[in-house]
């Protein structure tokens, strides 16, 4: 589904990603962990197409096509979704209107007609229930005055509505209490299928107790320095990152 080959990217002359290789297949959950400043969020933004970052070299192949030159919306139309660490506030545009616009823009890109209003409402209702979101929330302005937890829940609600092939969850656990974390993780798990895939970017192993990864990768200084199974995440939780550094020096 996704193949990242020897990816280099940076910002304003500063190289941040220094040769990333990663392969994600349908049905898989990958976790990317690493200390602050290792390039985790940059990797997520570069995959999603944020223009601020300079793509230096390498390939991002998604569903067999190199998407590294595409606009963010074109990547979304192909089935890529990024759940933001810091979702943006859009006053005056309700959650419902925003998601309707997003869905219909995606359909338009595929040459499909707008989703019929009845179908849309039914889907909104169903996905809102999945994430334990009440109706009042849906008529509020997007992210405006939302608590950290509400913002993250809203991100996963959008994920549920858009049903992408590949979802990248960037620090979705930050700012969540344990109950909200369970709701969000439960939502993600219910949306998982053999045809889609998830990349979970996280600092802590906490979220990985609920969204069980098939693979865990450690990102340090712009490179994936170690890959393993979920046991690796537990080891990192217990021992921190220093032992990996030491291992690398050897």
């Amino acid at each position, binding site marked *: 589904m996704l193949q990242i080959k020897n990816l280099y990217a940076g910002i304003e002359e500063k190289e941040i990603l220094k040769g990333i290789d990663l392969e994600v297949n349908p049905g898989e959950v990958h976790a990317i962990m690493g200390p602050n400043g290792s390039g985790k969020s940059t990797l997520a933004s570069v995959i*999603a*197409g944020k223009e*601020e970052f300079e793509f230096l070299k390498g390939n991002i192949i998604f569903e067999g096509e190199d998407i590294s030159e595409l606009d963010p*919306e074109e990547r979304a*139309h192909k089935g890529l*979704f990024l759940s933001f660490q810091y979702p943006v506030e*859009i006053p005056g545009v309700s959650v419902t209107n925003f998601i309707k616009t997003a869905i219909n823009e995606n359909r338009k890109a595929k040459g499909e007609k707008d989703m019929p209003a009845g179908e849309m409402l039914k889907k909104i209702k169903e996905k809102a229930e999945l994430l334990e979101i009440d109706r009042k929330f849906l008529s509020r302005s997007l992210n405006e005055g939302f608590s950290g937890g509400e913002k993250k829940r809203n991100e996963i609600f959008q994920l549920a509505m858009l049903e992408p092939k590949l979802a990248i969850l960037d620090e979705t656990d930050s700012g969540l209490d344990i109950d909200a974390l369970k709701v969000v993780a439960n939502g993600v798990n219910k949306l998982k299928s053999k045809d889609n895939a998830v990349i979970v970017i996280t600092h802590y192993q906490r979220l990985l107790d609920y969204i069980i990864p098939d693979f865990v990768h450690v990102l340090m200084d712009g490179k994936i320095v170690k890959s393993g199974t979920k046991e690796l995440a537990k080891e990192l939780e217990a021992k921190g990152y220093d032992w990996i550094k030491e291992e690398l020096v050897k």
Partner: protein
Amino acid sequence: MSLKDKLVSSYIAFEDHLEDDSPIHDLRNDAIKVFEEQGFPSKKEEAWKYTSLNALLKHDYNIFPKNERTIELKEVRKYFLHDIDTYKLVFVDGVYNSFLSDTTHDSIDVCLLSSALNKAKYKAVIEAYFNKTAVKDSLTSLNTAFAKEGAYIHIPKHKEVEKPIEIINFSTGNEAAMLLQPRNLVVVGENAHVQIIERHQSLSKNQVLTNSVTEIFAEKRAYVDYYKIQNDARTASLIDSTYVSQEQESHCRVHTFSFGGKLVRNNLNFYQKGERCDSTLNGITIIEGKQHVDHNTLVHHIAPNCESHQDYKGIFADSSTGVFNGKVYVEKDAQKLDAFQQNNNILVDDKASINSKPQLEIFADDVRCSHGCTIGQLDEDAMFYLQSRGIGKKEARALLMYAFANNVLESVKIPELKARINKLIANKIGVSLGFEL
């Protein structure tokens, strides 16, 4: 002959036609003298530094347009708030049009300034209020000298007017170039409420220059909501001078929506004369091409325990230009004041520009005043967020511009008007969004 000379020399003939016992006869004579002395404002004056009238003054305006053309309702229906019942004062080329209007004398007066100036029963009100709050500057004086027609609205005390009042000035393009000078007087009695919508609309591509003056008097605890819709043709220019005089505990709000016209200058002046007054000055400006919109505001705080809020948003595309010159003047007795002023702008294109100058002059020592202005582009992080959801660049920009201007709309209290402005904004931004904004 320059426009100034033409106006001054026409004045005598104009005045001759009016009745000598008019209560404003002397006011007119004084006013034309002020205009003759001062002439049209130039860029040398601080208040006109960024707005030049030179190009506009070159046209040979007809200053006494004849109303020869009638207009059909279906031609102009779209300019009214037709989905709700309203009082209407409609002027075509400066002349009252009874067919399109809907006036009343039933416990309130929504009628013509021309009758108020001529009929004895209005004399007391005219003498008490007319030209009493207007500043005697050259353009207002020019209007006063030729003041003849416009809206006369008098709401007696304790009267809540449920229907909004629409004042619409059409120009038909009968003349190659036309100067219109409507004059409105609004007197809102103690504890009375009123909502007024004003617009100027040219129906042709001929040059129109409107020099409009409105005086609003809000007595104790009166509530006044005044909406200005400025979405005129690209050959029409407007200089609007509005003066709001507030007594104790009155609430006055003026919203200015500037989307159209060639050049628009808004001189909006508030005078808070009694305690615990509340003033709101809100504006949304969305312009493009070579359009120019200048907001020149003044809130003059005289009495203590008052509030004022100014919130102006501007979106400037192409090589359009904007000015915000907002002044808050606090006299020494105006203690415990809370004054807020904000002007935020987005420049969509490199050639667009805005001159923003918030000013505070404070002579009281126990006040809270804040002001700020921002000038920027659309937030890149927000653009990325929307695009990453599959929303194309154009729609994403539209959504963000809408979000930027939105909070100003929240204080529009007439739902139909709000929907209308929403639609105008969506049109202006140039997209049809998948939902009603």
